[in-house]
């Protein structure tokens, strides 16, 4: 009889546990499902609104027209000026962030003491936590006047200072991820290089950086993706004039800035003007989606180089 009782208690505890497990499992599943659902609905909204847009404006016009003036009386729907603006600010940002970020990564990995590194790396990452609106005003009110003091043709709003400040913002992204990549190179390779009489500089550039190149490339692609999607800095400091140019000294407009401009304005919902932001958003999404996938692919392809 006692035996029967005991097994009964065990079974009831077992049942309670099982129910708990089920509930937790369900909750976990739900949060994953909600995330996926949100992503899918965003893509759905983007797609359906874009399809309506492209019903009125042909994709050919969208891709080939050289002006973007959907809010004017004489409407032109060429995305190229916005793409050029995005490309320009991104290129400037990477030109700033890649050399500085990589130098920091090499310094931290090859030269800095372990204690210094654990202190400096989080400090650098603080750069990434500064609100972008602060960066935007920094670009507009500090960097632009400073640059104007020796670049005479520089407009008050321009791609150059927005790009430079954006570059500063993404330095920690490149330095941190590249440093991780260099750290992941087996210690034995560094010793091999030293053992052959390499100096620290030769070890860093001849062995460590090439061996970590896939990780460094991934960090750059993610940084590009971040720069392409950056909104606030360019909205504040780069001007809002769509212009098909690679001249960094004049005001331009990026895809993100245009979306902000229209969202803040009084464009009626459902109008063609309103739908332009979805077409622009779709373009932006395609860029970042491709970049992120590229980085994922590189990571996967080159990950198992050593084991």
């Amino acid at each position, binding site marked *: 009889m006692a035996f029967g009782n005991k097994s009964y208690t065990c079974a009831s505890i077992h049942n309670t546990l099982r129910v708990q497990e089920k509930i937790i499992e369900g909750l976990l599943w739900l949060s994953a499902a909600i995330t996926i659902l949100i992503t899918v609905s965003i893509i759905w909204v983007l797609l359906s609104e874009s399809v309506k847009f492209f019903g009125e404006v042909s994709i050919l016009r969208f891709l080939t027209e050289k002006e973007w003036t959907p809010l004017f009386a004489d409407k032109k729907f060429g995305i190229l000026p916005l793409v050029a603006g995005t490309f320009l600010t991104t290129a400037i940002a990477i030109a700033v962030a890649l050399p500085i970020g990589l130098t920091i990564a090499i310094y931290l990995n090859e030269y800095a003491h372990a204690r210094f590194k654990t202190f400096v790396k989080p400090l650098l990452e603080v750069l990434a936590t500064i609100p972008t609106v602060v960066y935007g005003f920094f670009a507009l009110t500090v960097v632009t006047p400073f640059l104007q003091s020796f670049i005479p043709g520089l407009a008050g709003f321009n791609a150059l200072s927005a790009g430079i400040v954006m570059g500063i913002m993404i330095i920690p992204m490149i330095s941190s991820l590249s440093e991780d990549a260099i750290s992941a190179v*087996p210690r*034995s*390779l560094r*010793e*091999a290089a*030293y053992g*052959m*009489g390499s100096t620290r500089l030769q070890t860093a550039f*001849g062995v460590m950086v090439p*061996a970590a190149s896939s990780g460094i490339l991934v960090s750059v692609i993610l940084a590009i993706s971040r720069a392409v999607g950056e909104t606030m800095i360019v909205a504040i400091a780069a001007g809002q004039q769509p212009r098909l140019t690679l001249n960094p000294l004049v005001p331009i407009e990026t895809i993100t800035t245009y979306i902000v401009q229209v969202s803040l304005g009084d464009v009626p919902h459902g109008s063609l003007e309103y739908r332009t932001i979805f077409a622009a958003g779709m373009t932006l999404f395609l860029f970042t989606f491709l970049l992120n996938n590229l980085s994922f692919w590189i990571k996967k392809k080159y990950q198992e180089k050593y084991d």
Partner: protein
Amino acid sequence: MTKKHSKLEAINLDAYYGDFHALKGINIAMEEKAVTAFIGPSGCGKSTFLRTLNRMNDYIDGFRIEGQVLLDGRDIYAADVRVDELRKEVGMVFQKPNPFPKSIFENVVYGLKIQGIKDKNVLQEACEKSLQHAALWNEVKDKLDKSALALSGGQQQRLCIARALAIQPSVILMDEPASALDPISTAKIEDLIHELKKDYTIVIVTHNMQQAGRVSDHTAFFYMGELVEYSKTKTMFTSPKDTRTQNYITGRFG
């Protein structure tokens, strides 16, 4: 016959990792163009000592030494010695094969390239000579542009030896060079060591006492950071003087 010149010498050498006293008063002279083996249980300081001979421990935080290490009578820890120059004279082969993720050719000529040698003919000649010297040429001569990582472990280790030979050192340090290899590859490496000692001074750390017996002319037994016994290999294995040596080589500990 005159007594052979001693190539490397440690005088009252002490080494520390922070507070840990890793090497205690080491005095030893290693003969030129001969093989000296370091044996002893794990953590006895033999690898630490090997790595002080080309200053490989320099970048370890908290590592410091007292005393002297002489290469051809010159203190390698003197202020005017350039570490990279020293390591061109004292080459090293590591426990695990560690070729660079480059082609076989690029691996062998790496050391020459960082010295600024660009002449293609010079590099090619050095590559062939080093690979032949490391008994690898016949296996790889048709695929010099293939990745070194595609070679087998034993081939990779011989490539690492070829890479070390290419910069024409006079000393080669080997830190358990065959411990990660299969018996056949191990035998090849041991044969190679026999060949190499005609031209090079070789210092080898090994866990494997049979290996020490097979390849070395002199053996040094390290225990708890001390150099317990150092003599001709034959003497060491047939009539060790110290009881600790005796216990170790008869397999009572370690």
